[in-house]
């Protein structure tokens, strides 16, 4: 039985057992891994990865994405690629590495950055270079990059 915090009794600091919502999958407690595609993810691992791990994954996924979609002009197809989607899935921790990459060479990271930051800092820019500059300027302003 899962122990869930009862929001209604938060003020009193007590917990009580709640039945899980009916739409949750029935996870076998004996199962050691979640299965994600071909990967097994250790259930006991913390959800937050180290910066070094995020950086490594970003570069690995970016190379995979470029190989698979480099021939494409279709931005929608580029950003729907599974490696690009996994980069977005790394969360805000990946933003500094995307900006570092953008500083080295402008690339199609604007969609991912907009999704991660929640705002298009290059709105209205009509070239890849000017959009990259807008994002880098934002990154410096907020201290994400130097």
């Amino acid at each position: 039985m899962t122990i869930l915090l009862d929001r209604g009794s938060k003020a009193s600091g007590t917990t009580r057992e709640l039945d899980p919502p009916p739409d949750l999958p029935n996870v076998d407690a004996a199962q050691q891994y979640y299965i994600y595609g071909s990967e097994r993810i250790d259930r006991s691992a913390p959800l937050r990865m180290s910066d070094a791990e995020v950086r490594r994954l970003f570069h690995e996924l970016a190379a995979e994405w470029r190989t698979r979609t480099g021939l494409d002009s279709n931005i929608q197809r580029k950003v729907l690629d599974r490696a690009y989607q996994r980069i977005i899935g790394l969360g805000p921790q990946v933003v500094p590495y995307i900006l570092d990459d953008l500083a080295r060479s402008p690339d199609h990271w604007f969609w991912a950055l907009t999704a991660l930051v929640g705002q298009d800092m290059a709105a209205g820019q009509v070239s890849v270079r000017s959009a990259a500059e807008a994002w880098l300027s934002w990154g410096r302003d907020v201290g994400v990059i130097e």
Partner: protein
Amino acid sequence: MTDWAHVDPRARLLTQLPRLADKGFEITSQATRDYNCVAWSVEETTQFWWPVDVGGYFWPTDATEPLLPDFEQVYADLGYGRCVHLNHECGADQVAIYLTSSGTPTHASRRLENGNWTSKLGDFEDIEHNDVNGVCCDTYGETVIILCRPSQPQLAVSSE
């Protein structure tokens, strides 16, 4: 998966676009993301032309997704209309739009005065290819629509 960054560009293109091996081609630029095939088809080299709702790209209409009628409208605004003959008509500019089997535009190329075609290949290089179908592939699709317009006079360069 092959990391294209470490592969000779010509070998990479022959892998990605196998028909080029039979049809013939040459690489005519360095790889760049500054512009793409649609921009190159209208001789623009500072903007990446694609309909998408995020900053960094240029598109002449309000469209935010690639649809053939909108692509045709963009070219119509530049004087292009459907061309029934694939043969190189002297005095006519020609562009080709490539489509997937579901009719989504994927690529564009432009005919050169010598009758060959020039394509900017995504984030990679420009190439000159002998046959308009030379770049047909899984990514660009197998359907090609040809648009043409009366040849545009070159702007005179002032000598002042």
